[in-house]
């Protein structure tokens, strides 16, 4: 993750998150699938790490667990996702 741009980090988080979205609905109907459970837990840990790195550099991704800085509310500063890359 060292040299990734904001967009590259977002794409990476997007891939991990989508894998989790897909596993979520799979696990809803296969709650005892150990292979899927292990994979989900791996991804959840990875996602946390990447989100933490992203938020330190570019501001909050999520609302509830955003790492708020004491001087300024950063939630509304960064580009909104619908603005696109350019």
């Amino acid at each position, binding site marked *: 993750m060292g040299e990734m741009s904001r967009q590259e980090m977002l794409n990476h988080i997007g891939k991990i998150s989508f894998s989790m979205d897909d596993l979520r609905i799979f696990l809803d109907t296969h709650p005892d699938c150990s292979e899927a459970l292990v994979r989900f837990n791996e991804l959840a840990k990875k996602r946390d790490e990447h989100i933490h790195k992203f938020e330190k550099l570019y501001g909050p991704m999520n609302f509830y667990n955003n790492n708020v800085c004491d001087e300024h509310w950063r939630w509304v500063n960064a580009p*909104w*996702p619908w603005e696109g890359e350019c």
Partner: protein
Amino acid sequence: MWSYERRLQYPVNIRQTNPELAMVIISQFGGPDGELAASMRYLSQRYAMKNRQVAGVLTDIGTEELAHMEIVSAIVHQLTRNLTPEQIEGSPFANYYVDHTLGIWPQAASGAPWTSTYFQSKGDPITDIHEDMAAEQKARTTYDNILRLVHDHDICDPIRFLREREIVHYQRFGESLRLVQEELDSKNYYAFNPAFDQKC
């Protein structure tokens, strides 16, 4: 992207069913000034809202309205839970029951189905925020109308919470209007659309 939390924003625990009141309260799910229209209004308007701060207000209030939709739905659900055919027969709930049994479906108190014509997304920030402020007041009036008909504390309590949020949202939209107005120059005060027309 959205993620779901397994909790209501405000608790709903109704002990006594009441199909008549359910038919009134359902308007705040799928009626003209209900929470579904509110959420769709704000979330749809975001894309033309060039001011990022105000786009954030639309995102956050639009998201909260989804949570309010869930609260209203939970109220209707608990008011109609486990009803027997005898309790439904002859009640104003009977017509709804024929089409939806005890399922939750967005409609107005009148029975009119939810429609996107309940809101506008005009692509003009000043126009849209005025609509939003009016919408919050209309929803507040509707909750006041509902509260005059409700005497059960279990129902009043979450309805009062929702009513309060309409007032808070109105205040935030008022501030949003000021933020957008401050970006206008003196030649464009309601003369043209700041999100579309050049050089305003």
